[in-house]
């Protein structure tokens, strides 16, 4: 009987939106014979429960798909509503949505870098365990995260399930006094974010080149966040409404989350994909800070995602400062919408990547049908492939514990969703 062990890693919470996951790994003759990242998402059936809701309830409901990136859901949905009702957003509302969204990027990226990813690279169980050795880095991270939350609160009263977004804009313009109180703090944080970028670049990141397709939005002038066309590193360049003609969602028996593929292949969305495709859209101070790290983008090292996140924190701070610098509350904070029957599309760049929505509305403006493709499911197939390649190049002869840690590190690097990116409970290796 050949000696065998079976690797089975179960992720406590990994999902299309949320959920339970497990990684099954079977190694035979030092080859990965079977690798499946399974997601047992307790289904929450959002697409169905949105049916019949009016635009405001739609905005309030989709936030609840994810507590970590509710603004992303609200922004994609708002776009789709306006698309369906034929209202183009420009000017104040568009600018402020971008500022609001920047808050979420700062918050989410700072959380991921400090509380989730960094302990992996520095060899800690958790960020709290890291606190003794790296108190300043952790404090800086928590402060940036807090600042992102405050930026969100300016527009949404709270950073989880914000309440300020109205169909067509915002319920209330931020109070100028609150803006002028926050602005200097955002400015002061620029230096912190630059230091953070240098810090991430200096982390002992594994070096490993992979071949993957990047997908992200691309905008004529801006670093993509709130809008743009969907492009890929393989030359794809389509309108948001054309998504379904090129991307396909499919189901696999081991997972309740849907997988995505682009022309039959897995692909990457998220910070690294965005930066790889949009480096030329970085404002020059950010580009210069990135250049100083000495890391070349586009990068084929998946672990440079953490650096990309730091770049995006710096970018989001720059953007927020730029957008809020000459702040004046407008008379009207939301364009009035006239509901009509039709289909609307929306796509924005959530912290974790492309977030695509499509809704069909009835003539009263109520949702008849909804489809939402979150970044985590788009990355799922990519994570599986990455795991296979990473573990093989890491060396399958490593013991179970080392394999588990490496696998966790690979998955967390995608920041699939906060709870998804934490710890595996069990590891079962099968070797034959």
């Amino acid at each position, binding site marked *: 009987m050949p000696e065998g062990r079976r690797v089975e890693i179960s992720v*406590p919470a990994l999902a299309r939106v949320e959920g339970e996951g497990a990684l099954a790994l079977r190694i035979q003759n030092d080859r990965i014979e079977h690798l499946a990242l399974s997601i047992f998402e307790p289904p*929450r059936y959002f697409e169905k429960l949105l049916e019949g809701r009016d635009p405001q309830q739609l905005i309030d409901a989709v936030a*609840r798909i994810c507590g970590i990136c509710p603004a992303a859901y609200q922004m994609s949905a708002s776009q789709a509503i306006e698309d369906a009702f034929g209202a183009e957003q420009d000017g104040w509302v568009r600018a402020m949505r971008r500022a609001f969204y920047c808050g979420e990027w700062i*918050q989410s990226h700072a959380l991921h870098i400090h509380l989730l990813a960094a302990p992996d690279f520095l060899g800690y169980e958790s960020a709290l365990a890291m606190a003794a050795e790296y108190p300043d880095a952790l404090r800086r991270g928590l402060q940036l995260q807090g600042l992102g939350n405050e930026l969100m609160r300016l527009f949404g009263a709270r950073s989880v399930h914000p*309440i300020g977004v109205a169909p067509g804009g915002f*319920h209330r313009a931020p109070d100028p006094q609150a803006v002028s109180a926050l602005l200097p703090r955002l400015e002061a944080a620029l230096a912190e974010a630059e230091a953070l970028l240098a810090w991430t670049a200096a982390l002992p990141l594994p070096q490993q080149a992979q071949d993957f397709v990047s997908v992200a939005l691309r905008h004529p002038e801006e670093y993509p966040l709130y809008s743009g066309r969907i492009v890929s590193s393989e030359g794809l360049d389509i309108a948001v409404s054309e998504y379904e003609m090129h991307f396909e969602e499919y*189901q696999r028996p081991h997972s309740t989350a849907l997988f995505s593929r682009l022309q039959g292949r897995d692909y990457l969305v998220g910070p690294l994909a965005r930066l790889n495709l949009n480096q030329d859209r970085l404002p020059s101070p950010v580009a210069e800070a990135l250049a100083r790290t000495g890391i070349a983008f586009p990068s084929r090292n998946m672990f440079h995602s953490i650096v990309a996140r730091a770049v995006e924190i710096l970018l989001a701070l720059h953007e927020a400062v730029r957008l809020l610098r000459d702040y004046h509350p407008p008379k009207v904070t939301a364009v009035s919408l006239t509901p009509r029957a039709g289909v609307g599309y929306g796509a924005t760049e959530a912290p974790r990547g492309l977030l695509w929505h499509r809704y069909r509305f009835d003539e009263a403006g109520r949702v008849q049908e909804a489809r939402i493709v979150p970044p985590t499911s788009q990355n799922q197939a990519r994570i599986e492939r990455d795991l296979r390649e990473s573990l093989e190049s890491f060396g399958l002869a490593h013991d179970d514990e080392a394999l588990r840690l490496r696998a966790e590190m690979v998955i967390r690097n995608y920041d699939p969703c906060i709870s998804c990116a934490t710890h595996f409970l069990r590891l079962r290796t099968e070797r034959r």
Partner: protein
Amino acid sequence: MAVHKFSSCDGCQLALLNLGESLLALQEAVEIVHFLEAGPSDPEAPVDIAFVEGSISTAEEAERIARVREHSRYLVTIGACATSGGLQALRNLDRSERAWREAIYARPEFIDSLDQATPVREHVAVDLELWGCPINGRQILGAIASLLHGVPPIEDADKVCLECKRQGRVCTLVTRGVPCMGPVTHTGCGALCPAFGRDCYGCYGPAENPNGDALARRFEGLGLLPEAIARHFLFIHSHAEPFRTVGTAWRAQREKDDA
């Protein structure tokens, strides 16, 4: 202390992770033995306080919550999902779970799911419920601070209106005729929506002694159709009895009108 997650969006756990420096202070006041998002992982360890996020919507979750109860001296639910089933409990209304599963998933047989998403209270005894979708840092810190003194926190189940007025907000229902749920909604958020000039949509669940019938009649007077009234009550806390009763009554009204 432990933090457990069931079917949810993770937003309530963020009330802890968004505490900033207080998170470090918290770590000094209590020993966190299980909190996956923050790192510590030991779900079976006995604890004094267990915070539970999320509703129970699979067979596995029903088993797991029973184990959590066994290990915990004081079990506190956090947020709408754990306390009233949350948004996903909308499927409980007409037992539409199967139909929805088939509509969303090409291979519904792969999906393991109960036909209802239910609050923790329907499975095990709960010592304290923190309402809110999401709960905020003040609530959870307040609860921990009281528990550190060996007593449960004061249960404040007043209506949002009272806080709205303490904050000096101008009533949106009275000045603009919007259907504000504040008069039947549990306090705790700080009256955020009226502060932003909009109507409360009830994300903190039913307050004590709510008169949903009277408020629904008022909404009708403001020009809302029965289905719209129903949807106001059947939203984030559709499984909470006082909201469910009013909402389903108005939905039945709509169906009668349609017939």
